[in-house]
């Protein structure tokens, strides 16, 4: 059953805010506390908020299990792919081949306390995004699966 109109409106307003905040955490994983897993969990909790505010039938129309599973798989494949790309360059698996290269995420960082610049850290932000996408899909789909296990359908 749906919850009351007030909760639904709050969920509608908060879901984009949670989403952008989670993405902020993911993107700033190498500068501020956070990272792929934390950001993904935050976003997944936003999904849980939408799921609780509406009923199961409605929600499965907006958050599709197939899409979420695809997200999860693509996140994982991306994560492994970023690592495997190092093998293509003749490096060791998980070698940080982007740091200091000057290309995307490739600005060098001096040692010591500094204000932080987003465009650094090589493959770390890429991995953050991959893990974030994976956790986003995975944890949301867990809640959907568990709701589908309730005896009374459509709650």
């Amino acid at each position, binding site marked *: *059953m*749906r*919850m009351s109109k007030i*909760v639904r409106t709050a969920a509608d307003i*908060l879901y984009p*805010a*949670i989403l952008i*905040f989670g993405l902020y*955490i993911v993107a700033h994983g190498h*500068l*501020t*506390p*956070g990272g792929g897993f*934390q950001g993904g969990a*935050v976003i997944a*909790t936003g999904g*849980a*908020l939408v799921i*609780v*505010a509406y009923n199961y039938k409605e929600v499965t129309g907006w958050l599709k299990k197939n899409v979420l599973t695809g997200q999860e798989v693509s996140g994982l494949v991306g994560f492994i792919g970023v690592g495997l790309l190092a093998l293509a360059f003749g490096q060791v698996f998980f070698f940080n081949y982007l740091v200091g290269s000057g290309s995307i995420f490739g600005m060098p960082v001096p040692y010591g306390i500094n204000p932080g610049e987003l465009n650094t850290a090589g493959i770390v932000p890429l991995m953050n995004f991959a893990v974030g996408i994976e956790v986003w899909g995975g944890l949301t789909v867990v809640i959907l699966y568990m709701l589908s296990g*309730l005896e009374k359908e459509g*709650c």
Partner: protein
Amino acid sequence: MIDVWILAVFCLTVLMAFAVVRLVLGPTAPDRVIALDTVNTLVIASMILLGVVFQEIIIVDVAIVYGLLSFVSTLYIAKYIGGEL
């Protein structure tokens, strides 16, 4: 200057302990839920204050995460208590 912040954190922590009393006593489940909510609010407030105590600007993000997410579990519990889940 720092001492004042710590004193405030101390007061909030003590208040948290009192709120836990209601969580223990609470005759019904909703009583416990609102006690938990109170603890929640106090935790967020003390986290913001502790960010100043430690002089670390960036770790206030944790408080925002709490502020955004702590009510999701409350909603689940409310939906369950209301018999709608």
